[in-house]
């Protein structure tokens, strides 16, 4: 449900794009702050998006393109790439993929993981032994990597 730019987290068919925008602001502000503190200009960077965050890559890319135009890093080249999720069971060692982690979750539960990936163990368990001792090895959220500057 979208009401005057605000949507309620609960509900099955929500647009998730506001979260992507918030993250894009954080990414561009981080680059601005880096340039300001180091006196260097960012030439290129890569944005990795963990599968568990379930972000819309096109929306994130579009928001980054729009925001970066008005920053010190306007000419920077960047990519938006997916980081595969690996969730390890601390009890039996089984490694779960993104598909296995979210398979039994409904839309509302996925929405929670979208914001706080660490809560996977609150909503799920190891597919082999049923333990809730789950650790995210990769693919949790967004990270800015391989920043090249001049």
């Amino acid at each position, binding site marked *: 449900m979208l009401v005057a730019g*605000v949507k309620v987290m609960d509900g099955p068919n929500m647009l998730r794009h506001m979260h992507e925008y918030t993250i894009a602001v*954080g*990414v561009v*502000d981080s680059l601005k702050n880096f340039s300001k503190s180091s006196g260097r200009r960012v030439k290129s960077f890569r944005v990795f998006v963990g599968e568990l965050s379930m972000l819309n890559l096109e929306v994130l890319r579009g928001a980054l393109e729009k925001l970066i135009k008005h920053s010190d890093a306007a000419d920077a080249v960047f990519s938006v790439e997916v980081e595969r999720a690996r969730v390890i069971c601390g009890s039996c060692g089984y490694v779960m993929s993104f598909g296995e982690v979210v398979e039994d979750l409904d839309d509302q539960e996925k929405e929670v993981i979208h914001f706080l990936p*660490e809560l996977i163990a609150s909503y799920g368990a190891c597919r082999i032994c049923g333990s809730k001792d789950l650790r995210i090895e990769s693919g949790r959220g967004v990270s800015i990597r391989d*920043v090249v500057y001049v």
Partner: protein
Amino acid sequence: MSSMSRDGCIDYRDALIMKRLSEFSYVLLVTGGKGGVGKSTIASTAALILSQSSNRTGLLDLDLNGPSACLLLGVDESPMEAEDGLIPPSVGGVKVMSVDLFAKGRPLPLTGGAKEEVVKEMMALTSFGRLDYLVVDTPPGTGDELLTITRLTKQVGGAIVVTTSSPLSISVARRVIEILGSMNYRIIGVVENMSRGEDDSLSRRLAAEAGVESLGAIPFDAEIMVGGGKKGPEKLLSTVFARSLREKLRKAGLKVV
């Protein structure tokens, strides 16, 4: 903030957190180390008292394994998503953010590294807006949640250290004071909770040794426990406990009427 790691990575959340913190006039950390001394009740009630005193107030519950602020205040609405982040629900004028608004009573088996991620995520995503006070409820122990929030808020923060008269509680509070001191975190006072009228010399001595103010003792109030902790704002504010806490907050120099 927004520094680069050796492998060329930048944590985008640092910039968001810095922006959020710039909107808070004061961050009040409620800590103490020992479990069961009443940190959550003090944090929740302090937030209500500050709000009642016309301060724009938020409450961040960082007891990630055992959050209780929502239960104490009777909050169960989900946060709203807006362009600027997640807008927390309000109760008694206090904007409340807790991991329990997401977990909804489910278990929270979070390990150390995961806790730091959740603290940073909640700080980065929550849009409290401009606040006079952000009250932070910390969990028992001196682990990731306490260290992370201390590191993030030390420029605008002050801590109240909660203990009981028990030597066990005092000994854990002493460790917390030492950790906060090592990080140059301002301690605005030590408060002894659940006092049954016995000698409060141990908590006073603790404060004196640490060179911080003793805010005095809050009497044990059985009323707080009635209803299994589900109090809600009006009932919490009407207790003897709340009246005593109000005095302590005033003594600590907070804007309380």
